[in-house]
């Protein structure tokens, strides 16, 4: 392959897929507007009405039977285990226990809509810009912008975990995009700042948040602070949530969910080192919790990419597979463990891991990097 403009290369470039759809446009438009407003460079207020009409129009369009092209509709079959569905486009839905149930609302050219009527399901979606993939839980709509996520029904809503890519969650009264490594309960309870105690008010107006103590978190906090922290963190306002956290570390109780929220608030507000104690606690104390693999995976990513501690990162990724050997994060964890081992100078380990990956996931999405870090190229 000596000519970079050869037919083969040009043909390969024709396969570039831009996963850019109406939902992503609307998300980015909203974010761009927010940034413009914050920059104080516009006199024009955002027209919520236009956005609402846009969303409503999109939803109506999707619901119109005539808008769907039956000819391109994928087929769906129950998988061999009887615990899930497989679609002809490669997407799948897997139920996580016997009591879980999912029903097909629509399988059409432009949309696959499922309803989780009980329990928990994991959804692995092959991106298709021309087709949406949506999971409904009562009034909550989880729409796929990426590829792999889990939805669990709760008494009053749903718990969503994103392993890869992004999902958009809408519920009566709000919407939010969850990115890789994030989890949240829906509908989100909004607890806007009310009459905060004077001490906390002072702590929240400091321009820069100090580093969190790595010590265990046990100091009790006022209920209003806890509610505020949770509301801010679950709504993605991580910088504010982190300031509340640093002002009153007791806002985080010892449960896995709160620890995950604290880790999110720390790392997504630019304090990755401060996120690691929370993730380590989840892995240590809640190994059987569904969040444990995700916590270990996130820990590995922080250690590898943000803190430059590849040897520890490799161990964290190894833990993901140890906790849940056949889980949705296993293949990614193995690939990243390979990379981390290589970066830590553990070449033999990297090579062995790469061999394991190639044998187990011969068409895996990280095959190329695994081959590179396993020194097969």
């Amino acid at each position: 392959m000596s000519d970079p403009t050869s037919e083969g290369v040009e043909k390969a470039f024709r396969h570039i897929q831009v996963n850019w759809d109406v939902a992503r446009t609307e998300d980015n438009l909203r974010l761009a507007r927010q940034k413009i407003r914050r920059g104080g460079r516009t006199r024009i207020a955002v027209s919520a009405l236009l956005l609402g009409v846009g969303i409503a129009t999109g939803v109506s369009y999707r619901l119109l039977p005539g808008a769907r092209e039956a000819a391109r509709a994928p087929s769906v079959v129950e998988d061999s285990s009887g615990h899930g569905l497989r679609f002809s486009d490669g997407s799948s839905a897997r139920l996580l226990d016997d009591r879980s149930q999912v029903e097909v609302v629509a399988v059409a050219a432009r949309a696959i809509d499922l309803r989780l009527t009980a329990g928990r399901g994991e959804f692995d979606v092959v991106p298709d810009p021309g087709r949406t993939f949506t999971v409904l839980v009562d009034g909550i709509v989880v729409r796929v912008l990426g590829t792999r996520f889990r939805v669990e029904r709760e008494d009053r809503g749903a718990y969503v975990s994103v392993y890869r890519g992004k999902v958009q969650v809408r519920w009566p009264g709000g919407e939010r995009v969850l990115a890789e490594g994030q989890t949240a309960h829906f509908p989100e309870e909004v607890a806007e700042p009310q009459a905060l105690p004077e001490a906390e008010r002072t702590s929240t107006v400091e321009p820069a948040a100090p580093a969190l103590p790595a010590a265990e978190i046990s100091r009790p906090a006022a209920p209003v602070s806890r509610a505020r922290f949770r509301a801010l963190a679950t709504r993605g306002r991580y910088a504010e949530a982190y300031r509340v956290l640093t002002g009153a570390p007791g806002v985080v109780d010892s449960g896995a969910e709160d620890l995950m929220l604290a880790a999110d608030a720390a790392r997504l507000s630019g304090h990755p080192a401060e996120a690691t104690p929370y993730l380590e606690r989840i892995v240590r104390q809640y190994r059987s919790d569904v969040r444990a693999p995700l916590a270990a995976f996130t820990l590995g990513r922080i250690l590898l990419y943000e803190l430059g501690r590849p040897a520890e990162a490799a161990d964290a990724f190894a833990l993901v597979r140890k906790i849940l050997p056949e889980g949705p994060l296993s293949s990614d964890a193995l690939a990243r463990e390979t990379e981390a081992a290589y970066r830590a100078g553990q070449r033999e380990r990297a090579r062995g891991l790469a061999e394991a990956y190639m044998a187990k996931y011969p068409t895996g999405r990280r095959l190329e990097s695994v081959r590179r870090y396993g020194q097969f190229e």
Partner: protein
Amino acid sequence: MAPVGPVDFDRVFREHAAYVAAIGLKIMGRDDDLDDLVQEVFIEAHRGLRRLRDPGALKSWLARITVRRTIRKLRRTRVLMLFGLEAPSDYAEIADTSATPDERAQMALAYRSLERLPAAERVVWVLRHVEGESLDDIAQICACSKSTVQRRLRLAQKTLAQRMSHV
């Protein structure tokens, strides 16, 4: 022609976001910075929309902003990678599901080779060979002369040929 007023920002965004995203993705070869890029392009565009006299020039104007912003991102990424602060990308991830393993490998190899080029040469090469733009259009988008485009293309081609011949 009437200038594009600020009230049209949403329309401009909705009509051209996918175009901006496509250019950005093809040049960068990765999706993870794409949302930021699109937002940055339109935030910059928002400041100048009122001054735009010819609505027909909107698309190429957005392309120019996109290229400028993308070059900044590429340079930043290169520095971060130099210090080990940015993970190498799996370029094959942007291929659609119909790509064969060979095609995915070729795409990834080409992008890894493009990493070696100066950002300005990389942009010109991608616009020409991936986006299929004419030399005149590339000159306009990159705000340089046609001869500069040709020179950059020659340099890019030479480097890529050397790089890829070793594989």
